[in-house]
């Protein structure tokens, strides 16, 4: 009788605890994908990334590493909008994935708070030559003389266009001598020369890296200066650039439609003739239904000095490089470092290019990338590095603080919604400048 009582009490408490505890444990599982880093002895690594296009390729490279190391790797995808929120929750709670992507927008805040495994000693012990990478990218992941992440890749921006829509409107295809004015003319002709609902251009106003950032830098302005101390978005050059953006928006898909549908969906549905996109997105368009109609051209330039020729500084492409980082609290730092070392090694990088995942972080080893997309010429992404300037993506210590409001009501959104109003764009530039300066002043 007594045994029955104790047994029923034990079962009841267990049920109660599992119900209350169940919620939290599933949350941390889906949040940071890190069941393994808390268990200590389990020998397998959890890897978190945000780009589903790259998942298959990265898993292949990790599996190759597993062949020699014997440690299995699971690559999981958390989409960009939620990646940083979940990573931060994991960092605050102490359950980061073992290995994960780091980005220039957030690298400083993670490094300064000792969330990332310090790789400096391991790099020198294993004799890894960090000078073989793009220096801009390596420095993103260094703080106080220490290195916290290995460069994973680099990317550039290109112009994607739909040959079918160009033919329909009788407009010549983009070429490498196009200025933004030429682009505007072509977009205008296509918007007017195709049935209602089809446009020549669409600007993804939320993804600044593949859109208007390039225009701002091509005209000589900037969003954040090199020293990360100030912004020049309200300078005359920047305002000229944003005026060009405004002009393009007058013949582009209305902002409300872009918000509801997204530029990529609109392009793939044949509603837009041109969009700018990054090299990390090639796979998505290569495997699309109408990929045969698509082609890539070099991103246009801004003829600032009016000489009719393109100087390198007039053709600016945003470039960024992700980093492979490990959690400072990972259960198996040696395996994590070994995986990171392999992923960023010449062998790993060349495999990454061949699989068409992204362009390499080592200059000169991205040629395999260009030929990995049979039937689609993606040399525009590599040519722009010779014809133009690579501009590191602007960021501060905690870029999210000013990047989010910049694209909403407090920033450029009113101007994007009403492109017919030139003064509105100019005053929005001033508003955004104040926003960024404020954020920097508050230590962001």
């Amino acid at each position, binding site marked *: 009788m007594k045994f029955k009582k104790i047994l029923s009490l034990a079962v009841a408490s267990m049920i109660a605890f599992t119900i*209350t505890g169940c919620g939290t444990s599933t949350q941390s599982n889906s949040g940071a994908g890190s069941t393994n880093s808390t268990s200590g002895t389990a020998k397998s690594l959890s890897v978190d990334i945000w780009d589903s296009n790259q998942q298959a390729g990265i898993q292949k490279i990790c599996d190759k590493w597993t062949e020699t190391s014997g440690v299995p790797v699971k690559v999981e995808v958390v989409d960009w909008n939620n990646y940083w929120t979940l990573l931060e*929750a994991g960092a605050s709670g102490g359950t980061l994935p073992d290995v994960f992507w780091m980005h220039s927008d957030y690298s400083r805040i993670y490094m300064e708070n000792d969330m990332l495994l310090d790789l400096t000693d391991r790099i020198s012990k294993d004799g890894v030559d960090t000078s073989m990478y793009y220096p801009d990218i390596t420095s993103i992941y260094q703080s106080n003389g220490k290195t916290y992440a290995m460069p994973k890749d680099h990317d550039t921006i290109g112009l994607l266009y739909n040959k079918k829509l160009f033919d329909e409107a009788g407009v010549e295809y983009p070429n490498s001598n196009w200025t933004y004015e030429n682009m505007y003319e072509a977009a205008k002709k296509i918007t007017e020369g195709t049935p209602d609902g089809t446009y020549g251009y669409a600007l993804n106003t939320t993804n600044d890296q593949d859109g208007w950032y390039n225009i701002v830098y091509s005209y000589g302005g900037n969003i954040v200066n090199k020293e990360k101390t100030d912004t020049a978005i309200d300078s005359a050059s920047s305002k000229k650039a944003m005026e060009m953006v405004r002009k393009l928006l007058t013949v582009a898909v209305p902002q409300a439609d872009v918000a*509801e549908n997204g530029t990529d969906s609109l392009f793939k549905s044949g509603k837009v003739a041109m969009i700018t996109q990054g090299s990390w997105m090639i796979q998505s368009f290569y495997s699309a239904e109408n990929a045969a109609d698509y082609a890539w051209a070099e991103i246009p330039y801004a003829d600032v000095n009016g000489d009719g020729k393109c100087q390198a500084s007039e053709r600016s492409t945003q470039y960024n490089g992700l980093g492979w980082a490990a959690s400072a609290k990972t259960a198996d730092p040696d395996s994590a470092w070994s995986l990171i070392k392999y992923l960023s090694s010449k062998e790993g990088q060349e495999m990454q290019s061949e699989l068409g995942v992204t362009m390499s972080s080592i200059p000169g080893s991205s040629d395999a990338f260009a030929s990995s997309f049979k039937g689609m010429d993606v040399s525009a992404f590599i040519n722009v590095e010779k014809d133009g300037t690579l501009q590191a993506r602007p960021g501060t210590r905690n870029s*999210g603080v000013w990047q*989010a409001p910049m694209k909403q009501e407090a920033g450029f959104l009113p101007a*994007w919604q009403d492109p017919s109003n030139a003064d509105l764009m100019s005053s929005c530039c001033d508003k955004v400048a104040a926003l960024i300066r404020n954020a920097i002043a508050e230590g962001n």
Partner: protein
Amino acid sequence: MKMKKKMSAAQKKEMLWGLAFVAPTILGLIILNFYPVINTLYQSFCKTGDFGKGNTFVGLANYAKALSTNGGETWGALWNTVKYALIEVPFGVAISLILAVLLNKKLKGTSIYRTIFFLPMVCAPAAVAMVWGWLYNQKYGLLNNLFGSNIAWISDPKIAWISIGIIGVWSVIGYNMVLFISGLQEIPSDYYEAAAIDGATGIKQFFYITLPLLSPTTFFIVQTRMIGALTVFDLMFMVMDTSSPALSSVQSLVYIFYKYAFTLGNKGYGAALVMVLVVFIMIVTVILQKAEKKLVYHN
């Protein structure tokens, strides 16, 4: 002289067993409810550091920022939340009440209808938001293509809040209806028979018998749905894109709390916003409690 009754050994034993059984729940409540409330209150007075480290006490600075500097956004969000509640609660209650009355009769197929009406409650909120988002799509959505209209359901600041409210009503009808049906079944049928004998029509019966006797249930539903509606977040978060022109006219208070606390990492400010919402909900609840005394008919 009154002697304080001492508990017998058997009663003490029972009490201990009782405590043992509720201990897990109490522990859960303390760890997952009470402690977070106090922690949030504390954080609302701090400027939170990165990753929760290094909170610095700043007194009422967060509240000042929330209520006056960013007052436009805060009061706007509160007003949006109230607008949403003004659609969800009255319409949700009215429609589900009528449905409950209709489905309380012993007709053929009532159980099938009840299942159909309850289905929205079973659907995952994210799936609901995704499907409704596509229904509402201005160019390619089902609604506009079916009716041949070109209404910007969720991109027009003037009507986006109504569209979101409609989704809210749709998803809550099933839940309210089930509660109403159970409330209806508690009303003795004698009243209806007596009224029928006296010659009362169906509608008269509804207003003079059903509504008053249903008032405790109705009040319960209104109160819980009111609090639920004031804390709405997932609909706005999943249906509206961050670059939507109508975002500022639908974002709820919990939405901007999420934006500041999680997307922008400013948990202290977010905590202050949440406290403002808590105070508001308390005021609403007090008003409802006062109304209960006057409007609810208790046996």
